[in-house]
């Protein structure tokens, strides 16, 4: 086989493989949406699930997923930003910094189930928080924190050195330089990364099985006092998220339309993650235009 033919064959094969990937994704999305979309309605999105009757919805689960996301982000963002800034600006290159970077790496590749078990043992049992949104948020923080640190670190590293040096030369303190010169420039990248990380939180189930629990108590959507046990805003109530709900009805569902509910819920979940993805892209571009001179 001469070089020209080999080149052609290889090109075709590579394009074929790339095509396969696109087909797999389209097939996946098509399957999920085709089976689920017909089941999605306003009623399905807002009503409570039923145990044995048909026609249950996913309202509380959807709310729980979003609320858990907010809680997780409230814990993750300040911690992750701080740690990321430390890693990129304060840490002196050397053995210690290197090992911290290793810690971040290890933490980000921990199996979610191990983190879930850790959450069950420490947050749920030892700290006595019980199966609750808060335990779930803490467990998810464990996942999200390394991601957040990496995102921040990379974004800060992407800031032009001249800007930083100019600011330091003007006599600003390092911290002031970071907060008022570097962070705004790094912000678009950080926000894009954060939204993408949020998508991952939204779909996580294995860790939440053991921490946030698998039941959704009756929620009273007229009661917004975070301390009342039936208030949707109470972070110490057990909560089943959308991903966990799919797992549960797939495995234990008694309702006659469990299959359709699982399909519908999967479609909602995938659509939400899609939304996060597109949102992140759009927002990244928007912020980029806003903060840089490009018009």
């Amino acid at each position, binding site marked *: 086989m001469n070089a020209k033919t080999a080149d052609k064959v290889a090109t075709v094969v590579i394009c074929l493989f790339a095509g396969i990937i696109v087909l797999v994704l389209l097939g996946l999305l098509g399957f999920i949406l085709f089976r689920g979309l017909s089941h999605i309605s306003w009623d399905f999105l807002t009503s409570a699930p039923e145990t*044995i009757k048909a026609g249950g919805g996913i309202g509380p689960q959807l709310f729980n997923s979003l609320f858990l996301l907010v809680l997780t982000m409230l814990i993750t963002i300040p911690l992750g930003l701080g740690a990321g800034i430390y890693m990129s600006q304060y840490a002196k290159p050397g053995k210690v910094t290197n090992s911290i970077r290793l810690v971040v790496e290890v933490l980000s590749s921990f199996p979610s189930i191990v983190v879930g078990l850790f959450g069950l043992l420490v947050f749920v049992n030892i700290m006595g928080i019980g199966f609750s949104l808060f335990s779930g948020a803490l467990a998810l923080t464990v996942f999200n924190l390394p991601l957040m640190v990496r995102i921040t670190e990379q974004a800060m590293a992407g800031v032009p050195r001249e800007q930083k040096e100019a600011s330091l030369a003007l006599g600003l303190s390092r911290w002031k330089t970071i907060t008022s010169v570097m962070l705004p420039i790094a912000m678009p990248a950080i926000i894009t990364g954060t939204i993408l990380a949020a998508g991952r939180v939204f779909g996580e189930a294995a860790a939440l099985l053991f921490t946030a629990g698998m039941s959704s108590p*009756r929620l*009273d959507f007229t009661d*917004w006092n975070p301390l009342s046990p039936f*208030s949707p805003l109470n972070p110490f109530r057990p909560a089943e998220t959308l991903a966990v709900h799919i797992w549960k009805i797939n*495995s234990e*569902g*008694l309702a*006659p339309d*469990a299959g359709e509910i699982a399909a519908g819920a999967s479609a909602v979940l995938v659509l939400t993650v899609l939304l996060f993805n597109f949102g992140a892209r759009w927002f990244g571009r928007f912020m980029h235009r806003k903060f840089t001179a490009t018009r």
Partner: protein
Amino acid sequence: MKKMVLVVMALVLTIGLAACGSKNTTNNAANNGANQEAGTNNGTTGGAEGGGEELSGSILAVGSTALQPLVDQVSKKFMETNSGVTIQVQGGGSGTGLTQVAGGQAQIGNSDIFAEEKFKDAEADLAKDLVDHQVAVVGMATVVNKEVGVDNLTKQQLVDIFTGKVTNWKDVGGSDEKITIINRPASSGTRKTFETYALGTKTEDLQGSIQEDSSGTVKKLVGETPGAIGYLAFSYLDDTVKAVKYDGVEASEATVVDGTYPVWAYEHMYTKGEPDAATKAFLDYMLTDEVQNGDVTELGYIPVNKMTVTRAVDGTVTKK
């Protein structure tokens, strides 16, 4: 840069204000809610707890996923009549339930099997502190794929199948099809019940057998896999799988109640020591006719007070 800071400040302010605003409204809402609840309370003095003194407290019931829907549903009813009591119901499995009730994190531990069977080794003493409350009976049926052409299996045939002596359906009178066992994990309460009361012996996990912990998956796999056999609680039976007779006895509520069909288990709600007033009231409520003939039957369990036989921890069955 100033603009950025301004934006952030504005955001913080808005969120802060929004928080204050919502706090005010929540208070109002809470008051309204309380009033309403008081109203309903007056209206339903004929409820289960018509006693007079107001019960209060919060109860956490954790454990068996098989029992969870029932406790969940009954707890909601209970809370409607007793607004002072809050009950949270959690899954997590029988083991988690018993761990948490023995450790004091939960007031009630839901379990599919007797605590004595779960607490072993160093933990055996813990079972002594637990008080058993049997609230329902769950029957289990052997289910097979519809195509295997068998509608009765004797105890010996079942043992042969689950120990791997018989591997083809034609040996037990069915079509020529390889047997695929859909079992439960060794830790499962459902499996323990099935082994004790249907097989009468412990079985090992066979090479090639499938293990699923969840009834939904078992049902799906038995329905789809040619030559599959498994076992399910009565509540999961439908026309995608076929329930076979056990030694000629049909698996049904009637045969469980009169003691002819042996494959059933109690659903337990354990408390550590004697329960407090609110927990006791809730457990009593579980046993009222209203719940037993209503929710228990509705969800596919068998009312415990209907049973004409009782069974002790060691498995001996006595006529009532």
